[in-house]
């Protein structure tokens, strides 16, 4: 029996989840399929910044206006996914004078509340900022938690009758005689089982992978994945988001996200969106630029390097522009008129901040094609669950533990204060979760020791769900990949302690089962 859905959404990032929710709220019965864990692609590997829009006011005023509007919407519908840090745009001595001159007017034109901040006030609020900064504006930037946002969208979609499956890779499409897609062929990434799902319409929200999805339908869609590498600093170095007052470049934003600060980002056009290796040159470039914002930053501890691929789309389908020059705006491509596949759509480009708007525009078009008259309600109706709660504050977890009597007995991940009950709850919600999936829900293993202490503790909690080795080895490999590019100083000492434990005392290398997850795990 082949299940059939009105719409199949491909890609479990923020955009896909947003599309699924929007369609579901309009009565379209949808299924979302994701080849890995939800939020394991670009959405889960971004810098955590909810844009005010000011970053694009000069280069891309349209995107800037979209960001500004969506920033307001998300504060309303998903406060629990946000930390309202505010943000600064700061002009260092290296930044162009003209950019500074035009900035305020451009912000005003885009409807962004940018306020000039006296330097004394700036340095009082952010004492580590470079004293050579000569001008600063405050903007309504914020930090955003992508995984909670995605979960909340999926939860809302499910409440409205949709389904979402993960670890389902699309491996092909069945076409009917007039070229329309009649079914989506899926392969379970863990069991290898294949299945087919009937569909009315197909929406590819596969982001940087949209070209690969389109190719399965025989359609050419030229994506230009822009790899952005980021560094995770061990602690918060600023309280608010900090952006350079300059055209977007490397190492020019610093975002306080949970317990850490994220320094980003590089931009390198890559062929393969799965190529997320961070090179030493990128690391060096990021740190050099970081030092311009925060003197000494390169001597502070770096926990990890990671990269995500921007889902950049070249409208002209020609590719000699450097990726930063390619528009950050989003594009909805109707493959009917373009390629003759009437029920296939691709939504590409865009930013996490504008995911909801992208979803709305996609759903509008899809609904029009399906003859569904209902309008979009996603901007008005708050997201369910923790997303609806009060905004995040840094001390939350520690305060919760203290309220329960304190102590470390139940702390599985000591760095990020992940307790046994938190992991039990996460496992109840997703019984087949790997440790990396649990990480995305709980922040397991995301602190200074990068899983050195929590990996076997959490793996043991899986009990009969795991074979005893897969989770353990998979997570060790996964965490190591992010440590390798920044293995010096404190983090190398940490890695060496970890290596001593795992090889010296635990002889983990003598566990002798092949681990597909270890090979496939995301960085």
């Amino acid at each position: 029996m082949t299940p059939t859905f009105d719409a199949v959404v491909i890609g479990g990032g923020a955009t896909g989840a947003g599309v699924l929710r929007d369609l579901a709220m309009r009565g379209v019965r949808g299924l979302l399929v994701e080849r890995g864990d939800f939020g394991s692609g670009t959405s889960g590997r971004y810098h955590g910044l909810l844009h005010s829009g000011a970053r694009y006011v000069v280069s891309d005023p349209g995107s800037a206006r979209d960001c500004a509007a969506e920033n307001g919407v998300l504060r309303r519908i998903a406060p629990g996914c946000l930390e309202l840090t505010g943000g600064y745009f700061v002009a260092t001595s290296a930044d162009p004078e003209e950019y500074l001159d035009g900035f305020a007017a451009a912000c005003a034109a885009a409807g962004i509340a940018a306020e000039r901040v006296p330097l004394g006030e700036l340095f009082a609020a952010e004492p580590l900022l470079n004293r050579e900064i000569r001008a600063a504006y405050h903007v309504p930037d914020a930090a955003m938690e992508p995984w909670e946002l995605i979960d909340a969208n999926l939860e809302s979609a499910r409440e409205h009758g949709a389904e979402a499956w993960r670890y389902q890779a699309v491996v092909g499409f069945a076409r009917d005689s007039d070229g329309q897609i009649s079914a989506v062929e899926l392969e379970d990434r863990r069991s290898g089982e294949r299945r087919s799902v009937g569909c009315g319409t197909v929406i590819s929200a596969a982001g940087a992978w949209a070209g690969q999805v389109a190719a399965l339908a025989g359609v050419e869609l030229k994506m230009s994945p822009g790899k952005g590498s980021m560094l995770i600093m061990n602690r918060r170095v600023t309280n608010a988001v900090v952006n350079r007052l300059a055209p977007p470049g490397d190492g020019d934003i610093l975002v306080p996200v949970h317990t850490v600060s994220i320094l980003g980002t590089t931009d390198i056009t890559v062929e393969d969106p799965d190529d997320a290796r961070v090179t030493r040159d990128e690391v060096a470039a990021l740190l050099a630029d970081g030092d311009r914002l925060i003197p000494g930053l390169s001597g502070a501890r770096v926990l990890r390097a990671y990269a995500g691929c921007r889902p950049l789309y070249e409208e002209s389908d020609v590719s000699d522009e450097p990726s930063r020059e390619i528009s950050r705006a989003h594009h909805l491509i109707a493959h009917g008129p373009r390629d003759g596949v009437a029920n296939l759509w691709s939504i590409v480009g865009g930013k996490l901040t504008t995911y909801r708007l992208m979803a709305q525009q996609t759903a509008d078009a899809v609904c029009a094609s399906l003859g569904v008259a209902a309008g979009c309600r996603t901007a008005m109706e708050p997201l369910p669950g923790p997303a609806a709660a009060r905004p995040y504050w840094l001390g939350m977890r520690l305060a919760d533990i203290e309220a329960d009597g304190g102590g470390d007995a139940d702390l599985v991940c000591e760095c990020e204060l992940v307790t046994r009950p938190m992991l039990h709850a996460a496992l109840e919600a997703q019984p087949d979760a790997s440790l990396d999936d649990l990480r995305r829900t709980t922040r397991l293993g995301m602190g200074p020791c990068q899983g050195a202490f929590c990996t076997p503790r959490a793996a043991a909690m899986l009990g009969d769900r795991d074979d005893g080795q897969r989770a353990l080895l998979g997570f060790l490999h996964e965490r190591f990949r992010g440590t390798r590019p920044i293995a010096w100083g404190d983090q190398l000492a940490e890695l060496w302690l970890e290596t001593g434990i795992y090889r010296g005392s635990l002889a983990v290398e003598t566990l002798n089962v092949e681990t597909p997850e270890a090979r496939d795990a995301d960085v």
Partner: protein
Amino acid sequence: MPTYDAVVIGAGLAGLSAGIGLAEAGARVFVAGKGMGATHWAHGGVDVGDVEALSRRRGHPYARFGDAVGPALTAHLARLAAAGLPYRGSPGDTPRLVPTAVGGLRPAAILPEAQAAGLQPWAGGEGLLMLGIDRFKDVWAQMAARNLARQRWPDGPAEVRWAVAELPWVERLHNLTALELARLFDDPDWRARALAQVRAALPDGTWRIGLPAVLGLARHAEVFAEARETLGAPIFEIPSLPPSVPGIRLFEALRERLLAAGGRFQFGFGVVKVERSADHVVAVHTQGASRTLRLAASEFVLATGGIAGGGLRATADGMISERVFGLAVEAPPQAEWLVDDPLAEQPLESAGVRVDARLRPAGVRNVRVIGSMLAGQRYLSERCGDGVALASAQRAVQLLSARSAWSSVRNVAS
């Protein structure tokens, strides 16, 4: 401060052993540790590796002093036995496999007595029971048992099972690590109740019981004997994540021995300044709250460990520096430090300081380098770290004692 015969920098296995050896030889010795370290992280056994094979390997520290491993080990084990911390095994024993906390199999030849019952061979019909403790997060009996049952394990147990015991009080504790449990076991009343509860949790059968390494700290020998008797079966401790209770016992035994032999010991302050005269070190200064502490000596022993211990520090540009004397460090180029597999041998393991036959680095005549700072060993892959530490410490003691009759000039007051 008096002028010392020797200042030992570093308070891990190598530094403490050198300090003890020198003090016992009559030297005035000061051991300066930046903090505590490696002993508290490791499993407490003595890994010497394949001494014969490694001694033949060019560039391996054993090529310089492999012959010292046996005598050094004998002296070390005798010291520990005298301190009430007996070990099993002798130099030259072939390593046998012992189960680990995750269900791996670790080759070991010399183990604390409390760990020794985990070694091969197992008698026919003898099973292994992996015992967990309810709520204690660093024991993973089910996972370990499952992995052990799959191991290719010659002369291994007939059967592997697991059980979990609830211990008194434990459900009420806000803090629960190996350390808290070990301290609870030191208390005779609690211990009696706890062991009775453990016994009640045992399934029928003939078992050797592997349990977490928490059987007491100060009163470990007493706890171990009582546990073995009460449980009526061979038992063995399995070390897990740091803090390592077997490692703490080892450290305390060595520290006591050092003090008893008349050595001075300070921890908390690293060396921040070195006074030199030509190719000699005259004094080192340890950091202080405002001024440094000057430690003058005729000989210096560098035992600050490798990358984990902090003796070596790598920077983003791929430089690795030795942090006390700025000695030249031998290491692979940065691009080759690490391989893809975190559990494989890492080329960076071999990084360290190269020394001559008298343990001296290039350019300094009165510094001896010992322990995991020595270049050319891969202490994890070769499991030779403790052997290198003990043998190099002993060699350093011999070299220094031969050179000097410890007639150091004491300060004479006017």
